[in-house]
């Protein structure tokens, strides 16, 4: 008895440092508390979620249990049907006696997992997971971007706003009981996680849908029209907010690993192209701004063929003498070249810089290209006249929309942006983007004059007549540019584009549409203008833009 008592006393009162440390180590539980990545909303906020963390389940099985139950064939058949997997693959994973774990399919949505659970299949169980999910798959894919395996934003808004969206994980140090459950009152340390902030975009889901639908139906109204790529942007004139941005081909954000790199490129920001006639507006604006000409000034267009410094320049629609106003309406290369000569290379270069050529617009999305504007010192004798008509200079669609946005906005260029607000989980506004003026390349008077002249382009005898929208006066410009190839320009590969705004007198939105290598029809007026019309007519109704008064339309 004495011995037992002594042993008991020793066990209870002794130091037992090593044993206690073992017990403590076994019971201690320290984990990082996962944090939900912030959501991405469109401009309507809570109404329209574009990206969120979604609880899903991995469908797993205990092959040994399935084999023991003798129902391998039945379980395989049912699971393959519900998971959309080949029966043979499922059966192969399940028919493994002695194995205790097999993952059959990852990231299965709640509804599907519930359907499987309701079958009470032997040996089948689920593991909880959370994945970044994009409810509309390829919708707005290039703007939203995606999150990689490590939870880091790797493209689009997900990348640019990663530091806000990611949040900060928490920490928990506690003890577990014999059932491996936390003993709450033994909780030593608890650092709560900081949820990721929500990002509100300037994009309007409905306008985006209108644009995506229009881009996807470019071939509507044409027989066997093919194209290599297409992109479009809708921007609010007065603020620079991007209401929609589309690039094709697109890809499914929930399966971005399967998408080719070419599809992941946001062409609206990352593809530079020679703009062709859409760039003529710079030369016209500059000439008016410098008061070198008036809309009524008459210039000889040499019947469509003009030799300048040993190189011949042609007009698509040959004309004799044209007023400057008609030269813009008919998109005369010769008239534009003569304007640029009158302007002089130095001034033309300054205006091109002032309109943002060769510089990034500064939009809050990754992957923007600066375009190509050669330094003035590299210009040859004909560079100015060729650049004025959109050759030998490369732009992005974002730059083109900024140029026309400035004309529409009284000569004021606005910085484009897609993120309107970043709001923390507790409601604190962490970042708010305000409209930002980036320059004033032309005077308000010149801008107003250009708006009136560009509105004539969509008249029945203008090159952009297919962009006209019922009830609204549309101002814009068509562009058809041959693609540069080694040694010159391709005769078959073109970039067709249309950029314009409406209502012409008090513009609210500016839209650019670019189609890469349309075949067999290649002109901006035939291919891009109808797409512009589809976008503009629906967007104008949706945004409740004030219709142009009938008297103003009649004046056309």
């Amino acid at each position, binding site marked *: 008895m004495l011995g037992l008592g002594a042993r008991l006393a020793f066990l209870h009162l002794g130091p037992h440092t090593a044993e206690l440390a073992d017990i403590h180590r076994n019971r201690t539980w320290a984990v990082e508390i996962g944090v939900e990545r912030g959501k991405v909303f469109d401009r309507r906020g809570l109404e329209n979620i574009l990206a969120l963390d979604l*609880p899903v389940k991995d469908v797993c099985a205990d092959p040994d249990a399935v084999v023991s139950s003798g129902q391998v064939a039945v379980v395989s058949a049912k699971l393959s049907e519900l998971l959309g997997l080949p029966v043979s693959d499922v059966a192969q994973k399940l028919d493994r006696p002695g194995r205790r774990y097999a993952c059959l399919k990852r990231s299965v949505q709640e509804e599907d997992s519930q359907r499987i659970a309701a079958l009470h299949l032997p040996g089948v169980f689920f593991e909880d997971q959370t994945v970044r999910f994009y409810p*509309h798959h390829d919708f707005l894919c290039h703007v939203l971007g995606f999150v990689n395996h490590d939870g880091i934003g790797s493209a689009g808004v997900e990348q640019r706003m990663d530091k806000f969206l990611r949040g900060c994980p928490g920490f928990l140090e506690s003890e577990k009981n014999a059932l491996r459950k936390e003993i*709450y009152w033994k909780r030593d340390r608890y650092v709560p996680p900081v949820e990721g902030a929500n990002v509100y975009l300037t994009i309007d889901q409905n306008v985006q*849908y209108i644009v995506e639908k229009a881009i996807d139906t470019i071939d509507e109204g044409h027989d066997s029209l093919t194209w290599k790529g297409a992109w479009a942007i809708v921007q609010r004139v007065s603020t620079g907010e991007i209401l929609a941005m589309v690039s094709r081909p697109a890809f499914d954000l929930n399966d971005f690993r399967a998408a080719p790199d070419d599809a992941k490129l946001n062409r609206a920001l990352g593809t530079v192209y020679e703009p062709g006639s859409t760039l003529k507006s710079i030369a016209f604006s500059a000439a008016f701004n410098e008061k070198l000409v008036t809309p009524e000034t008459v210039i000889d267009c040499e019947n469509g063929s003009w030799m300048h410094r040993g190189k011949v320049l042609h007009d698509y629609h040959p004309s004799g003498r044209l007023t400057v106003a008609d030269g813009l309406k008919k998109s005369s290369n010769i008239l534009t070249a003569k304007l640029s000569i009158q302007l002089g290379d130095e001034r033309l270069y300054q205006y091109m810089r002032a309109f943002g050529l060769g510089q990034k617009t500064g939009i809050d999305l990754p992957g923007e290209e600066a375009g190509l504007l050669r330094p003035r010192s590299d210009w040859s004798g004909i560079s100015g006249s060729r650049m004025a008509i959109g050759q030998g200079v490369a732009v992005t669609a974002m730059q083109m929309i900024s140029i026309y946005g400035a004309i529409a906005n009284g000569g004021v260029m606005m910085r484009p942006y897609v993120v309107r607000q970043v709001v923390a989980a507790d409601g604190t506004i962490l970042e708010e983007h305000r409209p930002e003026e980036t320059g004033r390349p032309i005077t308000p008077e010149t801008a107003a004059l250009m708006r009136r002249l560009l509105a004539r382009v969509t008249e029945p005898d203008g090159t952009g007549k297919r962009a006209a929208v019922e009830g609204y006066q549309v101002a814009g410009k068509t562009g058809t540019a041959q693609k540069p190839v080694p040694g010159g320009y391709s005769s078959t590969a073109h970039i067709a584009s249309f950029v314009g705004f409406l209502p012409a007198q008090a513009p*609210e939105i500016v839209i650019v549409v670019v189609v890469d290598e349309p075949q067999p029809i290649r002109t901006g007026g035939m291919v891009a203008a109808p797409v512009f019309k589809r976008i503009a007519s629906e967007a104008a109704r949706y945004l*409740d833009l004030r219709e142009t008064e009938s008297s103003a339309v009649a004046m056309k």
Partner: protein
Amino acid sequence: MRRRNRKKTVHAFALPVPLAGCVVLAASLALAYVWMVCRCQTLGNELKELEGHRDALLKEYQQELFKWTRLKAPQNLERALRDHGIGMTWPSSRQIVRLRPDDVRGDGWGGAEEQQLARLDRPDRKAD
């Protein structure tokens, strides 16, 4: 003088009052301690349960949010309209009747203006 009845006198150990007080206090404290430990454990378990419940509700909320978002997506709405054979086009300005707040006041349509979904907030601009 009347004699005391010795048989009625109780012979027992009387705990001094201060000591008794201490014992009672100690016992009370011990009981209170045990009660509080039990209470803490119960509350801890309840908190754990509530934490689990909250997590489950959050997951459910996310799921419902996701379903709702997909349901009212323009793609889905258009598909639903098509499935039901409903063809819709945008109305022209002549087909639109605009209601001002004054027109609907008193009809229980207090939020009519807020329900205008498609509108850019903009100051009135003068035409050129």
